């Protein structure tokens, strides 16, 4: 519990700092980075034993630790590489990093929860923070619109989720995940019904089809710095929660949720591949691509086996690396004080900005899952797990959508490399964004040297 206590106290502290010191964005921003680093080191120094507190409603185990570190690390990269963007777009309000920290606190409770009530509280803390973040550029019509849209739809899904939780409590007599697991079986129709509601709510949070409608609008409308946060961190937490639900409370009704999961997975993969083809805005394209990627991760979850969950975790980890790289590239494309986000603006940048071009090349081929880059291994592990369960149709549909999605990634590469240049971007001094891009590319290129490095880590997560 110590990381959470530290995080909450720090949030109160920097909130006070922000209120009492004028023009304190820089100070708070740096303090936030410091808090994140300290929290990471607290989690790392803690022992890896399983700890249960508050009547088993809160669990600290390797599983939650892994996700907490992934959340913190990706936030650190997202936040720091977007700093120049935030200042340039006058979003430098001191609340910005504080709200991000609050949402992280919510995610911490989500991934550590072992109880319906705690899980719901964490989810709401996270969601409320995200609503504010989506509309943080309040004078911008689209940002406000995306915030409201996200709020309305997300509130609906939270309602469904809560309804599912209450049904679950009614039919099993407990809010504790493990006790629910003991009570659940397929004869318990009401509880199976509750499972569907909860699945819908969670699918909404990770923007899986058919609950994905909000994603493209919110991604496009929100400022890029927020979009990059949305694309990475809440997805990690949402997937962790989903895996937790499937692994603990719903483990006995596998056949019931498996069909739903397969459907969601296939629908996400197909929609992600098809809808992205016609996009002109890079952020909107990444939104659809993220829907597709969630589909692949869910294919791993749909196996209902530990190896499948592990492959989904590996997938989401590599996805995080790729997306941080892709969004950091957007921070480097600045002209006349404006950040460009249309794909056509990228045309021919390989001539004037060869380094950005080659980084985008690596990241996009990796997103497309072409070997020997990291993205290939992510898909490879998922399909190994899927085929272990002999789910051939899922694997073949998944691989065919890979080819379809390769088409739109290739289209961007075509714009970068084959077309003539129109725009010359300003040389940016954004060191952190460059660092993120280079770090992400290096990991993706060298991943094939030790492709099992993540697997070895993830293998230790499912001890119980």
């Amino acid at each position, binding site marked *: 519990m110590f990381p959470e206590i530290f995080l909450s106290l720090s949030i109160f502290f920097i909130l006070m700092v922000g209120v009492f010191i004028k023009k304190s964005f820089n100070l708070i921003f740096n303090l936030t980075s410091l808090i994140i680093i300290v929290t990471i080191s607290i989690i790392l120094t803690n022992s890896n034993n399983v700890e249960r507190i508050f009547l088993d409603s809160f669990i600290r185990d390797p599983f939650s630790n892994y996700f907490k570190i992934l959340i913190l690390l990706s936030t650190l990269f997202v936040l720091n590489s977007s700093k120049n963007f935030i200042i340039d777009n006058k979003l430098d309000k001191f609340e910005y990093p504080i709200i991000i920290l609050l949402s992280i606190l919510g995610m911490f409770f989500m991934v550590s929860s072992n109880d319906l009530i705690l899980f719901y509280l964490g989810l709401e803390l996270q969601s409320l923070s995200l609503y504010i973040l989506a509309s943080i550029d309040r004078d911008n019509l689209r940002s406000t619109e995306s915030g409201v849209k996200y709020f309305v739809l997300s509130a609906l899904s939270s309602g469904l989720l809560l309804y599912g939780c209450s049904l679950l409590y009614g039919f099993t007599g407990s809010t504790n995940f493990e006790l629910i697991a003991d009570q659940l079986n397929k004869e318990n129709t009401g509880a199976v019904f509750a499972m569907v509601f909860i699945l819908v709510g969670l699918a909404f949070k990770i923007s899986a089809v058919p609950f994905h409608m909000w994603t493209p609008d919110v991604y496009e409308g929100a400022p890029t710095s927020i979009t990059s946060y949305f694309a990475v961190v809440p997805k990690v937490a949402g997937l962790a929660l989903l895996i937790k639900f499937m692994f603990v409370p719903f483990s006995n009704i596998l056949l019931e949720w498996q069909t739903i999961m397969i459907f969601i997975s296939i629908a996400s993969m197909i929609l992600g591949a098809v809808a992205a083809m016609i996009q002109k805005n890079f952020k909107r394209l990444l939104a659809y691509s993220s829907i597709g990627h969630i589909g692949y991760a869910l294919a791993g979850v749909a196996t209902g086996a530990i190896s499948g969950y592990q492959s989904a975790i590996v997938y989401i980890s590599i996805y995080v690396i790729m997306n941080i790289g892709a969004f950091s590239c957007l921070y480097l494309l600045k002209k006349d004080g404006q950040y460009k986000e249309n794909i056509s603006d990228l045309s021919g940048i*390989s001539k004037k900005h060869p380094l950005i071009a080659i980084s985008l090349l690596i990241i996009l081929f990796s997103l497309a899952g072409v*070997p020997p880059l990291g993205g290939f291994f992510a898909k490879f592990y998922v399909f190994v797990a899927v085929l272990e369960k002999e789910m051939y149709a899922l694997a073949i549909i998944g691989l*065919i959508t890979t080819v379809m999605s*390769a088409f739109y990634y290739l289209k961007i590469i075509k714009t970068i490399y084959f077309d003539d240049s129109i725009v010359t971007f300003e040389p940016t001094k954004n060191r952190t964004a460059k660092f993120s891009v280079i770090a992400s590319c290096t990991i993706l290129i060298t991943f094939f040297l030790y492709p099992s490095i993540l697997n070895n880590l993830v293998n230790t997560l499912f001890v119980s």
Partner: protein
Amino acid sequence: MNFPILSTLIFLPLVSSFFIFLSKDKTTNVSSISISLFSSVATFFLSLFLWYSLDINTSEFQFVEEKSWINNYIKFKLGVDGISILFIVLTTFITPICIISCVNSVKVRVKEFLIAILILETFMIGVFCSLDLVIFYLFFEAGLIPMFLIIGVWGGPRRVYSAFKFFLFTLLGSVLMLVAIIVIYWITGTTDITQIYEIQIPKEYQNILWLAFLSSFAVKMPMWPVHTWLPDAHVEAPTAGSVILAAILLKMAGYGFLRFSIPMFPIASEYFTPLIYTLSIIAIIYTSLVALMQDDMKKLIAYSSVAHMGYVTLGIFTLTKQGIEGSIYQMISHGLISAALFLCVGVVYDRLHSRMISTYGGLVNYIPKYSFLFLIFALAALGLPGTSGFLGEFLVLAGTFQKSFLAAMLATFGVILGAAYMLWLTKRVIFGVTNNSEIKKINDINKSEVVMLVTLAFFILFFGFYPLPLMETFNVSVNSLINNYETALITN
């Protein structure tokens, strides 16, 4: 031997491409060209040394390197035998020629072009060295990235369409192979092919897995009816890209049949022989007829490549000693001949910027040296005795006659068609009347072009008269391939 010679061979071009990336020449590109030339020649000599020190009296894999890779269950395993060594030498031989050719033909972004070629070389050598299905897939697919860029960045006017078609066709074929590889892993518990050779894959899985592998190899080969990407890719690719595509990338599929399809799925290979025969015969006759009608030289040679690859698939699936040996010989010889022909087209394209046959005519009067070499290559392509092209086709037909008289007869008909389109091409380009006044001002081939073309001509003639060095190298490996295949059929 403990020195990891195969890894060195694979990663030498990659490392040197990194040095080119760091080199700072802006206008002349001298240092990038010299680094790449030096490293590719060094790779070539290293591969010659490998060939020299290979024991050709055994069919065992040699110079085996093994490293645990993915969680100890998939190993990074490399090795060569009598068949793969020839493809490795072919790759390392063609690459320096491509680098020389790009000095004349590539005008923009030379540095990036050389990097792409060298990275591609790494992946190609990797394909021929790998003894593990996942590693093989990795290198097989990774080659798409540099080739996509070579076609797309340095290609002709319709380069975007061609590059996309090339990439998506190949990727779509290959994903099914990936499914098959993973299924094999779950059936046998390994992806190490030397172990899979010993474990018989159950009969009921063989056919479907064989088809999944076929979907990938048929696209890459290319076999009719999925060959349509090849003419587009060839026409739009720059000269060096066409050379690599025709000489090496197409051979990966033939090699894949020999290394994976036949030894791993002997029953399915036998079962599907009629299918392959049909597709090969259609490829030979249909694409030869299409080649006759082309007015673009590169397109004509591209279609002739499809026809030649038809002989290769036909020969491999006769599953006789002559057939398989002929196929391997045909692949090596086609690697040299098609490379030479594409270079020849590149030579005149650099001067007049046209690939149309009608632009040319009567070249022999103005550029005799070029015409002489072109004639040698054209005759080799139609399989004139005394050139390497003859021996491959002859052996393939000899093998086919043992299995199917009808297939052999139809394939022989293709030889005549081959002679028709090649001779007609020669007649229209080299001889005939000069209608284009620009041809009178054309320069004959320069020194670097002489070096490339004469080297290729020398080897084409040399292996036409003296095939023994090649034959001896793969003899034992082919024997054991056929023996294993036949014992597998008998035990089932």
